[in-house]
């Protein structure tokens, strides 16, 4: 049975490899101008390559051939207008296409810059590319829609009956979000309005956290470990909180119950309260990003330990250290599994608490 299963697994991977138009070009030989493609192992770059966003989805490098899934590049340049093409045109960052290239040096490293005919950088275009992170998020959205729309269908079909199948799997988590997060944090009467947002937030974060731990395409994109993603989520919480702020909420910010000299002539307390309004989503953004980024980083650090030892003390040392590395990586992965749930819970809980504050009545 196991053999059959593993065969199926291989077939599954092969299917993915073949179904996406794969670009494979021989990597440049040693001594190439691009450091990232030189054969020498540089741990920092290796780690960043695995945790950071990218314009293509790297699957594997066999020998000197990179196997990647190309992703759309969408650019707007002040000089030449809109451009849209696949990332395969960049040839893994080795060539310049339509006067655009991926920078490998300096402060713009990793970004797309526009160059003129002479090869001089003339500026950064507005970059709206579907990067690896965005593609990963889109894939998670497809999964979420599949899971929850089918759960909703089954919930509709089986009204008044016991839940079954996928509905049975997600219902306890929905109930957890409702009874352990929304109700205590917002209050029994007002929580219903926020349930769709809290549920979407919780499941989006949870699914992306978990998907980020699976290192095989189409999983493995470090979505929730990307600060732009967490910033977007935090901005949603920020917007929902302040759009729902009642009179009491705004009074507590601009005219809190403190001695007059704290408000006039210098509005000390209002400044502190206002900074709190911004700090709350900011903390949400940083917490999720840092936790997920750190988890992914530590795993890759332990793996790169093998190659560091291999380089410093020979292949035998690398081999000797590999069991330790693997055990540590496994341990960190297990920890990340836990962290995935905790961070989804914490983000949702804190969002719910902020909504509760925005909706609180004077007492």
């Amino acid at each position, binding site marked *: 049975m196991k053999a059959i299963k593993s065969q199926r697994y291989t077939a599954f991977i092969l299917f993915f490899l073949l179904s996406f138009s794969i670009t494979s070009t021989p990597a440049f030989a040693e001594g190439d101008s691009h450091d990232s493609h030189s054969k020498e192992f540089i741990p920092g770059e290796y780690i960043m390559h695995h945790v950071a966003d990218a314009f293509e989805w790297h699957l594997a490098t066999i020998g000197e051939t990179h196997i990647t899934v190309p992703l759309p590049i969408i650019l707007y340049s002040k000089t030449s207008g809109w451009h849209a093409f696949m990332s395969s045109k960049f040839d893994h960052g080795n060539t310049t296409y339509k006067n655009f290239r991926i920078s490998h040096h300096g402060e713009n490293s990793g970004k797309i810059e526009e160059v003129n005919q002479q090869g001089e950088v003339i500026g950064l275009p507005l970059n*709206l590319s579907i990067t690896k992170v965005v593609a990963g998020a889109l894939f998670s*959205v497809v999964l979420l829609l599949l899971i929850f729309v089918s*759960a909703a269908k089954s919930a509709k079909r089986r009204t*008044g009956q016991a839940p079954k199948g996928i509905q049975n799997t997600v219902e306890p988590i929905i109930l957890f979000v409702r009874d352990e997060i929304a109700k205590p944090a917002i209050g029994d009467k007002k929580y219903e309005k926020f349930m769709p947002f809290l549920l*979407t937030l919780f499941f989006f974060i949870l699914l992306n956290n978990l998907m980020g731990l699976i290192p095989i395409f189409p999983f493995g994109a470090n979505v929730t470990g990307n*600060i*732009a993603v967490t*910033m*977007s989520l935090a901005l949603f919480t920020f917007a929902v909180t302040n759009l729902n702020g009642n009179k009491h909420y705004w009074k507590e910010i601009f005219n809190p119950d403190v001695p007059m000299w704290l408000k006039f002539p210098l509005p000390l307390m209002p400044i502190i309260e206002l900074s709190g309004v911004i700090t709350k989503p900011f903390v949400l953004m940083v917490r999720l990003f840092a936790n997920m980024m750190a988890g992914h980083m530590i795993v890759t650090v332990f793996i790169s330990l093998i190659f560091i030892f291999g380089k410093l003390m020979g292949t035998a040392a690398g081999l000797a250290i590999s069991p330790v590395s693997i055990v540590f990586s496994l341990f960190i992965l297990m920890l990340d599994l836990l962290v995935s749930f905790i961070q989804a819970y914490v983000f949702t809980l804190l969002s719910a608490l902020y909504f509760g504050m925005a909706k609180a009545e004077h007492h």
Partner: protein
Amino acid sequence: MGFVTPDFGTLFWMTIIFGILLVILKKFAWKPILTALKERETSIANALSSADKAREEVKDLKADHEKIIAQAKKEKDLIIKEARDLKDKLLAEAKTQASGEGQKIVAAARQQIQAEKQAAISEMRKQIADLSVLIAEKVIQKELKDKASQENLVEDLLKDLKLQ
């Protein structure tokens, strides 16, 4: 430190993606799921409360039953007691009546006996008187056959008289 600066493109797409996800899931997933959950909860709560009600009713019925049984028992006791009282009364009445009757009979018997006795006594007296006259005749006849005995008799009679 590129990875701590949010990328505008990612932020842009993520906001659109999450916004659309929120709208779609809200309409097609969360609303039906949450309504179904609520409906089920209310139906369960209703079922539980009606079960409670039924239990309460059964309890009431039981209490009613017990009440009825208790009343019946009481009535039974009362009837038995009445019957017993009646029996006692009847017995007592019969007894007094019987004893009165008996006494009457005894008194009548006694009277009759007295009367019979009286009659017997008077009869006996009469007969004794006759007999004694007869005896006296016979004795006198025998005693007065000779002279000596006549004299003795007179003497005895005189002795008696003297004594008196």
